[in-house]
């Protein structure tokens, strides 16, 4: 990473680190930290999804299912078997990776709409299992009183503590994904996105790379699910249905598929829009939400991040020409 690029990232990191302290003194936004905890959890899902969609060019409508598997594995292992949550979390990730691999090998042979259909089908199946396996999942009435998280014997209670934990996970996921993208694998993924046949002809093991990215996105979703479980301490299958898979895809699309920052921005933006900023519209909230999505897709189809970058570039160019 060049030093010029590091400066804005440093500023961003500092802002994120100071966020709870910035909003705390202002009563009307002091609860934004709570919203950011959920936004961070969703970011983990969408970072993986953006790798899959924006770089490998595969649409998955199963991310909520992996999110759910991670959540339920954590809940069952800690609630029923008394596992330590920190041990249950990787266990959930392993289960998710295995499931994603089994689903991915045949499904990723499909392309375009067919792949979306296959993952959609898988997502629906998982949702039905969560609903019907009452003995294990508590069924539609959900699972209650799941233990919370603690670090070194101190239980994590405050939202601020959760904020730092969740966003540390996000930062790690971002860093790791960034390195993946700027490695051989990343270049291969981009080649697959551009033209699969050409990539294959160049010797890129297309199928194997696609499955690997799919598994990686599932693992991130699973970690997000585990965090969600221990944060809310209650699970119901409706938090992991198809609607949520679609929401995750929307977050990536609105932010911009071609960049990890797009996933981040889109997720935070839509989480705030959906939970906070539209409350004044009361009964019309859903309509306004839909209108915003429509506007973004119609006028900035490349996503908010790319749009902002272009605006910045244009302004810089205009400033340059004026100073001449």
């Amino acid at each position, binding site marked *: 990473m060049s030093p010029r690029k590091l400066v804005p990232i440093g500023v961003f990191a500092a802002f994120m680190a100071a966020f709870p302290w910035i909003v705390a003194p202002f009563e009307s936004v002091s609860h934004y930290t709570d919203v950011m905890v959920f936004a961070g959890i969703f970011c983990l899902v969408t970072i993986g999804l953006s790798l899959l969609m924006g770089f490998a060019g595969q649409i998955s409508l199963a991310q909520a299912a992996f999110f759910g598997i991670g959540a339920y594995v954590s809940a069952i292992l800690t609630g029923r078997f008394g596992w330590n949550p920190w041990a249950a979390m990787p266990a959930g990730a392993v289960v998710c990776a295995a499931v994603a691999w089994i689903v991915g090998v045949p499904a990723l042979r499909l392309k375009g709409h067919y792949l979306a259909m296959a993952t959609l089908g898988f997502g629906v199946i998982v949702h039905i299992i969560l609903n019907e396996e009452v003995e294990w999942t508590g069924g539609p009435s959900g699972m209650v009183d799941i233990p919370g998280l603690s670090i070194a014997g101190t239980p994590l209670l405050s939202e601020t503590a959760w904020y730092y934990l969740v966003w540390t996970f996000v930062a790690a996921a971002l860093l790791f994904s960034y390195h993946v993208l700027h490695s051989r694998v990343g270049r291969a993924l981009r080649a697959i996105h551009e033209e699969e046949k050409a990539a294959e002809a160049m010797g890129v093991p297309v199928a194997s790379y696609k499955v690997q990215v799919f598994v990686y996105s599932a693992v991130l979703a699973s970690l997000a699910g585990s965090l969600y479980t221990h944060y809310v301490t209650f699970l119901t299958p409706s938090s992991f249905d198809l609607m949520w898979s679609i929401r995750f895809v929307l977050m990536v699309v609105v932010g911009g598929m071609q960049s990890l920052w797009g996933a981040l921005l889109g997720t935070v933006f839509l989480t705030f829009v959906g939970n*906070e900023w539209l409350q004044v519209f009361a009964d019309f909230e859903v309509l306004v939400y839909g209108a915003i999505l429509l506007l973004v897709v119609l006028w900035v189809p490349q996503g908010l991040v790319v749009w902002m970058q272009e605006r910045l570039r244009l302004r810089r160019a205009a400033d340059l020409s004026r100073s001449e």
Partner: protein
Amino acid sequence: MVGRGRNRCVGRASRVLLWVCALVLLTPVGVLAGGKPYKIGAVFSVTGGASFLGEPEKKTAEMIVEQVNARGGINGHPVQLVLYDDETDATKCNLAVKKLIKRDKVPVIIGPSTSGNSLAVVSVAEAYKVPLISCAASYKIVEPVASRHWVFKVAGSDKHVVGKMYDYMQAKGITKIGIMTVSTGFGASGREELLRLAKDYGITIVADERYGPKDTDLTAQLTKIRQSGAQAVVNWSVGPTAVLAVKGWRDLKMEGIALFQSHGFGSKKYLELCGDAAEGVLLPLARVNVGPLLPEDHPQKKVIMEYIRAYEAKYQEPISSFGGHAWDSMHLALAALQAVGPDRAKIRDFLENTRNFVGQHGIFNFSPQDHNGLSKDDLEMVVVKNGDWALAE
């Protein structure tokens, strides 16, 4: 160039103005002037899958606040309702409750509307020590009571509904029943209690069928129950499947096997949708649904009839039993505010010690062991007769 520079300035200024407008729009405005208002926080599922619960609850809560403020508030303080819609989404509900606690600093919260959403915020109420009066039914909301110090609920538990139903069956000599339940939280909870309590009443469950909330035909389930030799069939669902069960039962000419519905069938809309097919269907209902049928000297008669009159005059639509939950939780919160003021801990203690509180859904008797305060005696067994409710004998 000067001209262009000024244009740019104007452009900047208007953009800043736009942002300010947006911020103002997005910041909720403080309501009411005069004496410091007592706040009551509310979270209902006004839109989304459970809007049939949240909509009447919201209307009821708003109506009560209007009535109270028209009378001059409580102890000279106007009442302010801070209401959020959770869109029947657990995550959103969780955030809304935190916002009520942290930003709006409410001393007491009523809602959420559904069991799932209530369970998703129980830990929040406990962590922040804020009294929460849920309008949902699941017994898990208030049990185990040791870890539900701050949580109450005003909707009867499914065990009361099942108990009332089984009492009636016992009286009629029914011992073998078939049950059919929908695979949602509502159906699953009903099924649990139907299975758990059967033994206590000497009832054997000879068929246990389940179906999805979006199923369009229940003939298969009903046929199996008919073949199982059941004397009665219990259907536990809300929405279209509750109507399908009645129609299928009639189409299969199963009148010899009595059809019991859950309290979820307690809306006149179902009777319209079922038409003549619903004649003879039995169900336990809270008294708020059958106010006009109650004897004049019944202690709940007066509050129920007053609620019906006010609600129907204001909204030109019939009341629903769900609005009754909002009535009960609102009036409990108001009674607490009147007695002890806006102090979270005192309100909690007041609620826990409330006895003989006459509400829409029964006469509440809370105690440290019981944060629901209702019993099966707060229900009436009702039968559908001439397209309307009638008290069953």
